[in-house]
């Protein structure tokens, strides 16, 4: 097994909520990320899926050190970068870049495309004006844009083209790792496919490693070698794409997968779905025990008191659940219900 290029161990990110004008006292903490461990190996794509507000983007920002973590460690290329200062981080940022979700907000409207893509090169002092220009035009060509568009402003481009600009910019310093935070969520489906294919091609050509964050299960399956499912700041299930999509063990992962529409009407009719009630609970005051228990159709008393530990299901497949889903696809309602209806949590 290759050495991980990025190793995140027990990362916790809490945002304190303060009140008071002069003497601010802490009245609570938003537990956005709460003890997440992830390994990313060189050359692979690791997908992180979860609902809005589950802490995916916070995790991405912690990896890129845009947030300081509350506790835990982040190791990148064998070096602990958890507590590096901004200046110490600078050389490391060459090897770790980010692609952001919103292709409209992430490009400064007052800069030209050439300046936007060339910015990392200028910041890191790579080459003369002419060299930077040549490099930028090469990058534009590489991501499928016309190098002649060097002098245009972002508003002259479509959403997909803007995301290509964002990708070109992330590639400028020839990074080893790119953290993609919902890179295609803001795009049309047809454009999504183009961008995903571009990312795959670039991965092959430049030997890139991706951390790919998204809420769209199909998108993640399409690009990822391994997948982590997040719920309310915790990883609930992890494994290769085939393992998780083939047989999800955690009821949360199963509910997400059962909600994916099936294009075959006959199959769709016989399909059992786990329909979750309510919303994701507040990360300010997360549920005790297993964080999923208030919404889980299989929850029992144990789930509200004891936090489940990650259990192996063979290979790399891990899930944190006291009562994992036994059968997949779900064939009848009994597959969904709690194993012992007598032991109700109420």
């Amino acid at each position, binding site marked *: 097994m290759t050495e991980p290029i990025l190793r995140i161990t027990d990362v916790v990110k809490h945002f304190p909520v303060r009140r008071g004008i002069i003497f601010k006292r802490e009245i609570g903490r938003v537990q956005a990320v709460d003890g997440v461990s992830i390994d990313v190996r060189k050359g692979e794509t690791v997908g992180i899926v979860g609902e809005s507000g589950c802490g995916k983007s916070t995790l991405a*920002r912690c990896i*890129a050190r*845009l947030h300081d973590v509350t506790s835990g460690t982040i190791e990148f290329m064998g070096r602990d970068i958890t507590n590096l200062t*901004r200046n110490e*981080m*600078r050389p490391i*940022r*060459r090897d770790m*870049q*980010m692609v*952001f*979700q*919103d292709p409209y*907000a*992430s*490009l*400064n*409207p*007052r*800069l*030209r495309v*050439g*300046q936007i893509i*060339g*910015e*990392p090169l*200028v*910041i*890191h002092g790579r080459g003369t*004006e*002419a060299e*930077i*220009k040549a490099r930028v035009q090469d990058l534009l060509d590489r991501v499928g844009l016309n190098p*002649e568009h*060097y*002098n245009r402003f972002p508003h002259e481009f479509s959403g997909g083209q803007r995301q290509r600009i964002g990708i070109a*910019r992330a590639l400028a310093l020839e990074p080893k790792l790119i953290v993609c935070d919902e890179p295609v969520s803001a795009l049309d489906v047809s454009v999504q496919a183009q961008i995903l294919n571009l990312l795959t091609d670039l991965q092959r050509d430049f030997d890139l490693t991706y951390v790919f964050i998204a809420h769209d299960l199909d998108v993640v399956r399409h690009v990822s070698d391994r997948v982590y499912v997040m719920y309310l700041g915790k990883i609930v299930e992890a494994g290769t794409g085939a393992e998780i999509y083939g047989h999800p063990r955690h009821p949360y992962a199963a509910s997400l997968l059962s909600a994916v529409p099936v294009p075959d009407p006959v199959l769709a009719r016989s399909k059992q779905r786990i329909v979750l009630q309510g919303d994701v609970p507040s990360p300010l005051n997360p549920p005790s025990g297993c964080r999923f228990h208030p919404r889980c159709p299989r929850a029992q008393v144990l789930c509200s008191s004891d936090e489940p530990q990650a259990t192996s299901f063979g290979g790399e497949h891990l899930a944190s659940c006291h009562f994992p889903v036994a059968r997949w696809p779900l064939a009848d309602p009994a597959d969904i219900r709690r194993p012992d209806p007598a032991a109700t949590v109420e």
Partner: protein
Amino acid sequence: MAAEPAISAAGGTARALAATRRTLSLIWSSRRGRIGLSILVVFTLAALLSPVLAPEDPTRDFGSEILAPPSSDHLLGTDGNGADVLSGVLIGARVSMAVGFAAAIISGVIGAFVGVVSGYYGGWIDRTLTAIDDWFLVIPFLPFAIVVATALGRVADDWPGGRVTLLIIVIGMLSWAGTSRLVRSQVLSLKERQFVERAKALGASPGWIVRKHILPNVMPLVFANTVLIVSATILAESTLAFVGLGDPLRPSWGTMLEKANDSGAVATGAWWFFLPPGIGIVLVVLGFTLVGYAIEEIVNPRLRERRG
């Protein structure tokens, strides 16, 4: 294709010129902007050319006829000293507008600097600057300006530009608080934008982010606001000059109004003495206000939509 506007200085100047031309044509496209710009062009030309245009030196050439009504010798009559009012108005335009401009630029620079620093860096820096800002917002302008201008009047006589320089500094220092408040709020919103976060992810220093990402996005706002502030600073100069704090060697419109009042022009109905400088002030203030609103409409797209 223009050569490397990304970095080269020549490209920068060419771009600035193009931007100025674009802004001017945008201002011209609204009716307000057209009226305002026309007024300002006329008065600016008059002020710039006043040494050539003015028939006499209003601070030296005193004729024998005082408070004489308009005639072929003196198109706008004479003042209480027998000097030519038309010359006074032309020279006065220069002083009034120079003070207005310079003070507004000082206020714009201080306001932008304080606003950006306070908004971007936050924390105790922000709290300190906001407190200073609050102080400048609440002190009553006129008494404070009168006190400072009086106290430093003698000292300022030896400065280049004399008391006019003093007025510029006093007015400029007292009118930046609103601008900095405006800029600060804009910066607070800008610094949370994704392109700023992205620049941080690239390893950019705070100085780089402020220069490349924050300033270019607040400058149009500062510009619009500064143009509006010129009206206020011109009025402030007139007020201070009217209460006797102007420079007697460099008379502005306010100084003329003061003299008109002192020489009893209002009581005797010598309208040619007090009306021209008064109308000058009103028109120039109107011009700057109209142009300021026109720029604000360009800068703030929400106002543009409202216009339809």
